[in-house]
């Protein structure tokens, strides 16, 4: 690391001496250990390390990027020169400039009790094999295809820029994904589930991960066996934290990304319907939904999958109140787009690895919990559904027309949650259709893990996709 830090510092001096208006060097040392099992047999395993430096420059209003895994002064010098040449060749009429930010020189790290490398390979495999054994013993042919993926990622980063900012960090993320198929005499149901968080190996036990996965598969098998088609039309809908989390992420988090709003992701992840809203209204005034709706993106919650305290542009992280009491309140910003809006960055810049440029990302986007218990959410519903988990989902690239297909779904009748399971009800709703129908939010919080995809080349970064239960009134099920 020390040699790499010297080289990162060297890159800044070199870039400045070659005429760059801004230089940033990001050294990333990472370790990724992973295991994949299918029906209790390890299918693949690997343990890889990687070290490299990303260089980003602004020259004459253009941006250039180059990365290298060759850690010597010659390679870094070449990378700087190439990045500068690329930036100059852009010939932009409107220069790219960054917001002015407080210069920080600091360190942060994720608390870890048991480092991944200190846990034996046997113990890691045992977790997977034992979990699969338990599932197989319980379900046999009812759960015939079970794939389990365990990933243990850690990195050590050193980010420095020509404005004298310097942030060193150590992070550690553990994830468990399952992709399982349950079969009954009538149907099969599939489920991809992710759980993850920042921390060390202790996370597995402290969060009762094996128990969560087991219960999730109980529900999957039950759904395949019991769920029936019901012709429900307009009903009240309560969705769990898993479903409200994906809604907060897709319908509110993504359109809040300022680079989308101003078109930078136009050819890939798309733009944002917020562009039209902001052309005709102001932050703090645009009504998005009922007053009970507040949606926050917060990287600073300890243990969350997208946890960080300073972003990849050395800006201090804080909670972002995207929607406050029903009104559009704040966008997700990095330094380039903060400057376009004439404000400060709110530290949303993240890069997947040293080969990637930092772009605007969510961390952990959720409905702010309310005062209701889940029983209270159900109690005045005459007829409705409780969507506990979802399967298929998608949304248009302006983030307005979304679809969420229920997986584990129960009928609510006369204020009570029943055992009747409903097969694959569909919420095909606009963002306003969702936010405008929410009238109550529970005080619980569940946080499944997800990989958020954006950028080109694709940067799948870890996020939490959770939150409280929410209740939506008068929802017409099924696509038109």
């Amino acid at each position, binding site marked *: 690391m020390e040699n790499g830090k010297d080289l990162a510092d060297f890159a800044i001096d070199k870039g400045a001496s070659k005429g760059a208006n801004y230089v940033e060097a990001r050294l990333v040392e990472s370790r990724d250990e992973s295991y994949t099992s299918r029906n209790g047999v390890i299918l693949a395993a690997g343990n890889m390390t990687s070290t490299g430096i990303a260089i980003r420059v602004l020259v004459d209003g253009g941006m250039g990027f180059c990365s290298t895994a060759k850690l010597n002064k010659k390679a870094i010098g070449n990378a700087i020169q190439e990045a500068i040449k690329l930036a100059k060749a852009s*010939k932009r009429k409107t220069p790219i400039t960054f917001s002015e930010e407080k210069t920080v020189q600091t360190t942060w790290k994720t608390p870890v009790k048991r480092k991944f490398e200190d846990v034996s390979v046997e113990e890691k495999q045992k977790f997977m094999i034992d979990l699969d054994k338990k599932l197989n013993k319980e379900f046999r042919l009812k759960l015939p295809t079970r794939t389990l993926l365990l990933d243990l990622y850690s990195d050590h980063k050193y980010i420095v820029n020509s404005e004298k900012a310097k942030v060193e960090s150590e992070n550690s993320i553990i994830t468990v994904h399952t992709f399982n*198929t349950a079969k009954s005499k009538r149907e099969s149901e599939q489920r991809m589930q992710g759980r993850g968080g920042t921390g060390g190996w202790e996370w597995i036990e402290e969060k009762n991960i094996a128990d969560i996965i087991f219960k999730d598969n109980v529900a999957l098998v039950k759904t395949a066996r019991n769920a029936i088609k019901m012709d429900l039309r307009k009903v009240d809908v309560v969705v769990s934290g898993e479903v409200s989390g994906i809604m907060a992420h897709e319908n509110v988090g993504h359109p809040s990304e300022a680079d989308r709003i101003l078109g930078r992701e136009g050819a890939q992840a798309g733009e944002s319907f917020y562009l039209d809203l902001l052309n005709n209204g102001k932050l703090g005034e645009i009504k998005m939904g009922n007053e009970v709706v507040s949606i926050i993106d917060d990287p600073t919650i300890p243990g969350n999958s997208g946890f960080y305290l300073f972003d990849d542009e050395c800006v201090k992280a804080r909670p972002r109140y995207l929607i406050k009491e029903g009104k559009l309140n704040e966008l997700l910003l990095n330094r380039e787009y903060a400057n376009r809006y004439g404000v400060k960055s709110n530290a949303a810049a993240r890069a997947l690895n040293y080969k990637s440029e930092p772009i605007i990302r969510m961390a952990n986007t959720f409905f702010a919990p309310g005062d209701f218990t889940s029983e209270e959410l159900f109690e005045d519903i005459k007829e409705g559904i409780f969507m506990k988990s979802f399967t298929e989902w998608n949304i248009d690239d302006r983030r307005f027309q979304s679809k969420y297909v229920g997986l584990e779904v129960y009928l609510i009748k006369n204020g009570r949650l029943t055992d009747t399971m409903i097969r694959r009800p569909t919420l095909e709703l606009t963002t306003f259709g969702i936010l405008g129908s929410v009238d109550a939010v529970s005080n619980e919080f569940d946080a499944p893990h997800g990989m958020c995809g954006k950028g080109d080349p694709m940067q799948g970064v870890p996020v939490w996709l959770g939150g409280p239960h929410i209740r939506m009134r008068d929802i017409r099920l099924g696509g038109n």
Partner: protein
Amino acid sequence: MSETEEILKKTIQVAQKNGLNEIIALMTKGKTYQIRFSNSAIDNSKIWHTELLEIFLAKGQKTTLIDVESPTLEKISMVIPQTGKFLDKMPNSFLYGGMETEPHAYQKIEGLYDQNIRDFSEKAPELVNTAIQSSLDAGAKKVAGVLYFGDSKKELMTSHGIDSSYKTSYYRLTIRSFVDGESSGQDITCGRNLTNIEKKFNQTGAAAGKIAKMAVEGKQGQAGKYDLIMSSTVAANVFGEITNGANPLKMMIGMSPLKNNLIGKKIASEQLNIVDNPHLGEGLGSRPFDVEGTSTSKTPIITNGVLTEILHNTSTSKMNQAKNTGSSIFFDFGIGSKLLAPAPSNMVYKSGDYSFEEIIADSKKPTIYITSNWYTRFTNMIEGSFSTIPRDGMFLVEDGEIKKPLRKLRLTDNLLEMFSRISAIGKDIQQIQWWEVQTPTFIPTIKVNDCNITSATQ
């Protein structure tokens, strides 16, 4: 001996010395450039110098894969013994039945490398700006997109004496043009031959601009059953979910609508013929050999609507008592570790009988033409029940004419059922690879009858 040869030999030697008995060492060296643009201006230009050594190691039936970036003899001497110790603690992989053991004579594929790539980085920014202008001239108000290009050399050495290499170059331009936030059009051009590249880029820009202009003042479409005309881009994405599933690994873990017992059975319209063809010079997935050193070969996947073969490598062909199609890659699920498994090269559709204009002219009843799509997701991958979202120009076709632009609809259907409802295949074959289509696919416009179109309820 070149530096790369020395590294590859050292990799095999160190691995053998550490008790590993089957080894693949694959070095990729090259440059990749990217120019990203939006709002009709270049946002960021990037260059990646790739020097990646991918190593597959087996000890009996225990296997693992590691990447070594910018490898040196020192790094190799350190990493391989560590990985050997890691492997000692692994159980046998039931998926591993051995690798290629015989050196082959490989087919020379003409056109994999165009030497004009060498100075292309000098011209590329200007070509991008010209393509942007072509789109603006065609009616766009702002233009976004990405250009990738570069070259690389792959050098393979295995513990079974296989030692070969090939060089490639490529370009891939995606342009998405906007007249307003909801009126957009996209076009793609990709391949390896840079002859007339400025013309190709400008045509791509103009095509995207034209669709965007046609999409202006689109209105909410009505949900219902429609015949559907899918552009090459859409068909490559939707039907790619089937052909990418012609893979024993995906079938085994429930990520494919195909099953072994469908081989030899009719699963699609008789008009449909698809071959996995790794020998097309322009094909971005072309390769003379797979990562084990097996010769690649043309593999018929669908013949007159019948599922003919699926893709295999050495191990899966042994497991399934099928022909090894030379399709082994270092397979990556996106999460977790890589493994040796088959994957497609280029999916190549046989040209149909219809021009695009004839497909439109033959569409008398209400039909929807979709030019691009994204976010294809499944309720159940074995069933093939899915939905995907049209984006960019989408049009109502009626009485043999494109009548008006539509918006805000979703295709919600079943993959194999759509395969069997194909009613027309175009002649306008185009290579597609972009953000939403990873497998290079040579595919024309395809019409499918009676598709289910849905929309938001509120």
